């Protein structure tokens, strides 16, 4: 915070002075962006679907919660450094590949178990698909018109994207996208619930509010959404307005909850791409050598960043015998601790740490 104010003072009057806080500024900018996009998308508000206004309110509350959390989080010293350097490194060649790996196909989750991976793909992509359909509709970025019988025109951002046959395959996918996504989410959530109830490893660490609530919310949204279709197709729209309200309500509650619980990892997760870029980029530049064994164990940049962050928290690990613990690789650091306990310089004995995995 302090560095911020001093920067603002130096540059004299900046645009930031117009806002009471970072939060106010971010809120203002994103709500304006939403309004402008909707203005363009709906051909100057001539195609607004007012049935969906509950979602609009929900989205704006979500944006508020998101910025509130994100800004508080981004102010923490380690996060600040990572975001700043990560943004700079976004142009790396490997960024698209890393992003697909981390955010699209979740390779690392596959390594945590195939079951968890399938479950995450179903829930993750189900939600993404649903959002990609719902929000453009809510804000009028996309809508359908029927000019001549039997053909729909899909209008995207005010431009006629394409005309499709009403009983064609693209039209079928458009009507059913939300049903497909709901089925995916229901399948994924059921897998997750099954694991949470049966698997002892998962049961050991879970908490009801943190681990189950988001699953039940997603399940509720998906089931009420599917019921809407059922009412439409089989019950001639019986009770549909009521169900539509319940569904809308469940989505709004989830949106409001999203930045604060387990689901918060969705908007924050892209930072893992920053982290990978950061490690690769600075790792190529210069590696730090362990003061005792000479191993390259981390990039110089990261080591310095961590030392700085710990410095902010008034932690400095300078030893009486002259070095700083940050200069030791991890095995040497552990052996050094043993030496502090025993009085014998274990870390100076050139023997690899032996038998650390309980395999006989």
């Amino acid at each position: 915070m302090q560095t911020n104010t001093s920067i603002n003072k130096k540059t004299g009057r900046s645009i930031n002075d117009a806002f009471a806080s970072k939060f106010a500024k971010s809120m203002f900018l994103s709500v304006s962006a939403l309004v402008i996009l909707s203005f363009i998308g709906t051909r100057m508000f001539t195609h607004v679907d007012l049935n969906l206004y509950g979602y609009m309110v929900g989205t704006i509350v979500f944006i508020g919660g998101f910025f509130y959390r994100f800004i508080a989080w981004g102010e923490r010293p380690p996060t600040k450094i990572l975001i700043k350097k990560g943004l700079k490194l976004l142009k790396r060649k490997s960024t698209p590949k890393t992003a697909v790996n981390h955010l699209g196909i979740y390779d690392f989750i596959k390594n945590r178990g195939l079951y968890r991976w399938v479950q995450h793909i179903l829930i993750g992509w189900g939600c993404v698909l649903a959002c990609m359909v719902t929000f453009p509709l809510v804000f009028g970025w996309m809508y359908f018109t029927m000019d001549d019988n039997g053909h729909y025109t899909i209008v995207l951002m005010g431009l006629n994207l394409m005309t499709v046959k009403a009983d064609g395959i693209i039209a079928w996918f458009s009507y059913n996208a939300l049903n497909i996504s709901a089925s995916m989410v229901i399948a994924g959530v059921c897998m997750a619930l099954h694991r949470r109830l049966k698997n002892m490893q998962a049961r050991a660490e879970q908490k009801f509010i943190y681990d189950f609530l988001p699953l039940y919310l997603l399940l509720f949204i998906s089931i009420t959404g599917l019921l809407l279709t059922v009412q439409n197709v089989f019950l001639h729209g019986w009770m549909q307005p009521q169900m539509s309200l319940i569904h809308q309500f469940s989505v709004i509650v989830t949106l409001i909850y999203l930045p604060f619980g387990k689901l918060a990892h969705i908007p924050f997760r892209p930072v893992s791409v920053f982290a990978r870029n950061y490690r690769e980029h600075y790792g190529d530049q210069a590696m730090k050598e362990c003061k005792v064994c000479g191993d390259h164990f981390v990039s110089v940049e990261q080591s310095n960043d961590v030392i700085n962050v710990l410095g902010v928290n008034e932690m400095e690990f300078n030893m009486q015998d002259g070095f700083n613990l940050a200069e030791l690789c991890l095995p040497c650091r552990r052996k050094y601790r043993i030496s502090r306990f025993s009085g014998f310089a274990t870390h100076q004995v050139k023997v690899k740490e032996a038998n650390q995995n309980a395999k006989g």
Partner: protein
Amino acid sequence: MKKRLYLELENCIGCRSCLAACTQCGGHEERNRNYVYDVNPLVNRQTMPLMCLHCVNPACARSCPAQAIQIHETGAVLSALVEKCIGCQNCTIACPYGIPKFDTEQNLMYKCDLCIDRSKDGIPPMCASVCPSNTLQWLTDEEIEAKQKQFNLDNGKWVTSMPYLEGETNVRVNLPGILQGVTKLF
């Protein structure tokens, strides 16, 4: 009654039961999170365990950009939350004792969580339950104090934790008597 993990390092006989036990704790997915070291491997058989000391002001959690390392109300410093850890490995190089382990394949840090599913209910952690030599114990503060009295040599050599560590810790460590030339009766 709040109990703590208490280490009497010189008792260690190097059986590595604690490593095996750690793999069996719930949520550990059969990987251990602690260490046992030979003190002077080429000369004698003295060993000592090393595990997370659950710092009061944990460097690992302070350095984590994702707030993935949470501190439990019991004071235990937990392992990374799987959905939050972004795999930067800051924590591994921040810890003054080199405790957190990192799985590059899963892009995930894991560390001793004091077997939180057990210790939050007052059940001793896995490693302390199996240790055959009383190196790892699960004691109340009064019991630890009683031990201190029992071994009080009035020469400042029996010390728990500070000032031999880098900060206050929730785990108490007893500096070894044998290696300081003090004979101890069990």
